[in-house]
């Protein structure tokens, strides 16, 4: 099977940019990243359809000249799903902004608490670690208080 290099390069560029954006903290950037990545993935399906051909409508062209219709059907489904996902993520980003004033993806609070426990367990050996942990403590505790107020 011959593959279309332009499509592959565009897809990898989109996916690469998407991955970069997903690593950001802000949910709206993550969302843009996910969208770029989704578009890149959809292009990959175009690659898997093989070389371009006539529209796959019965009677319009000989069957051998038609392009493979199945990947297009799959991409259509994927696009619809991506639409729903985008709407939901936007709603979540908005809600997060309503609650916290930003839409940053937050740390696992309980996990931070356990890390803190481990850090404070042995104060003499790891004084610096414990010291850092207390600064972090204050930050996470604040987050927690906000959440508590919300509930």
């Amino acid at each position: 099977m011959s593959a279309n290099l332009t499509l592959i390069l565009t897809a990898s560029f989109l996916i690469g940019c998407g991955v970069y954006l997903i690593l950001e903290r802000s949910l709206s950037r993550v969302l843009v990243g996910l969208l770029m990545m989704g578009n890149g993935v959809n292009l990959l399906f175009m690659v898997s359809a093989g070389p371009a051909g006539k529209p796959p409508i019965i009677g319009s062209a000989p069957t051998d000249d038609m392009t493979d219709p199945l990947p297009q059907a799959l991409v259509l489904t994927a696009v619809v799903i991506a639409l729903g996902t985008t709407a939901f993520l936007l709603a979540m980003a908005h809600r997060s902004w309503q609650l916290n004033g930003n839409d940053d993806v937050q740390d696992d609070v309980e996990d931070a608490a356990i890390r803190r426990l481990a850090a404070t367990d042995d104060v003499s050996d790891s004084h610096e670690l414990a010291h850092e942990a207390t600064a972090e403590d204050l930050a996470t505790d604040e987050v927690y208080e906000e959440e508590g107020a919300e509930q």
Partner: protein
Amino acid sequence: MNLTDLVPLPVVLPLLGAGATLMLSRRPRAQRLVTIAILTSVVAIAAILMVEADRHGPQVVWVGGWASPLGIALVADRLSALMLLVSAVVTLLVLLYSLGQGMTGDSHEAPLSIYHPTFLVLVAGVSNAFLAGDLFNLFVSFEMLLFASYVLLTLGGTGARIRAGTIYVVVNILSSSLFLISLAAVYSATGSLNFAQLSERMGDLPDGTALMLQLLLLTTFAIKAAVFPLSFWLPDSYPTAPAPVTAVFAGLLTKVGVYAIMRVQVLLFPDSPLGNLLLWAALLTMVVGILGAIAQSDIKRMLSFTLVSHIGYMILGIGLATSTGYSGAIFYVAHHITIQTALFLVVGLIERRTGSTGLIRMGGLAKLSPLLAVLFFVPAMNLAGIPPMSGFIGKVGLLQAGIDDGSPLAWLLVAGAVVTSLLTLYAIAKTWSLAFWRTPEQAHEMMRALPALEDDLDDDHHRHGMVIHGQHVHVHGTAFGTRELAEARRVIDEDAPDRDLHQRLQDGSLPSRLPLSMVLPTAGLIAFSLLLTLVAGPLYGYTDRAASDLLERTPYISAVLGEEP
């Protein structure tokens, strides 16, 4: 009527029901009736399908009447039918429980009308995943159940749920993108997405290509199934949801991932070079998961970590890729769906009774509510694998498979599985001794003896069985951090409206008894798990047959492609 026509119903009925309940959103009573009726009929259909699949082999329906191999196939073989039945029973009981709870436990903020439709879409997605006969249909069913789960997880939109939901949604969208990439790759390599056709064409591919496809698919499903090191999202996101939602997620969603791994490994990559990789992943999942569980000071989080840990057992069975291994894994999936759901339902009851799932505030539950103690004790012991319950039988089956295999790695996994089982018992015993075995007075005294935050304690202090360090307190090997201590102090404060159990006992201001409508479904689910123990013999016979079907592959392939065996 041909019984094969029943195959699409577990998907179609809940979807129709979702539409109906959405239209009935102003009439909660009618909504409930519709949902219960539909879930009950799904249970019945699943039972019929299981008998049919066992007697006459895989039942195949080509949706819309498109001829093989162009259409979308739904296949109910022995494995699918068993998964379908167990998941149907579990979802029905969880729904009854959530009705008793007043939907979601915080009905004043959760929009009531969307709970039923979303729950039904979730059920449809899970059923579709078990029945899907091709990879793309599997993808669509994953999206169906994930979308429903996004909504259920963020129900009410409180701060904690949005925080947990964000991570859950992003992780799952990422894994869905990965799934799409693997679909595109599989399609370009083979020109098909149908499991049966793929199983015939996969063998012709160059080894490298097949390996890449396998790795892509395995990574995708390992995220869904929460296999270490792709499991970190789970204990973070599950505990914040309402109790019945957490219960059904914990029971079903990860198992759909396990099922997908099983299906793909057997049908597509029978001579997989990645068996050892799966075994290592299983070992790490078991051990890391259970160590996480021991460190937790909250029952819900402890259970979420045991969930991750016990996924390892199923991966162990799949990694061994022998008939006994698969049989044990299938049995274990059925057992674990029921038991993990039951435990989360019980935790919902505990939360209802005491207003918290933090261990530091609890004490004397056994005295306060013996019924609750029994309801917790039985599934907890089952989870830890105490004979003669189904957890024990499933583990013995898997250990047997490991010993039969006999390679050093398999022996290492047998050891890891035994250690994990013991550590599960330890984590449960810790919870038990703090939440149930202490008297309320002891819990009260302990909280009173807590040092104030400002106190600077240099050395270890021992008071009332606690070891107090500067910032945290150890009780019976459980460490409690600043936040929980602060909460405990707030409870103990005479002026605060919160009262701990001891004070409530003194005041006589205990809440009324647990609502029967919540206790009965929980008890029903526990009874179902004990029933699995009771019928373990026949059930193991069934899973043995399912496993040999899986390994043989021809029953599935010939049923789907319509060739006579």
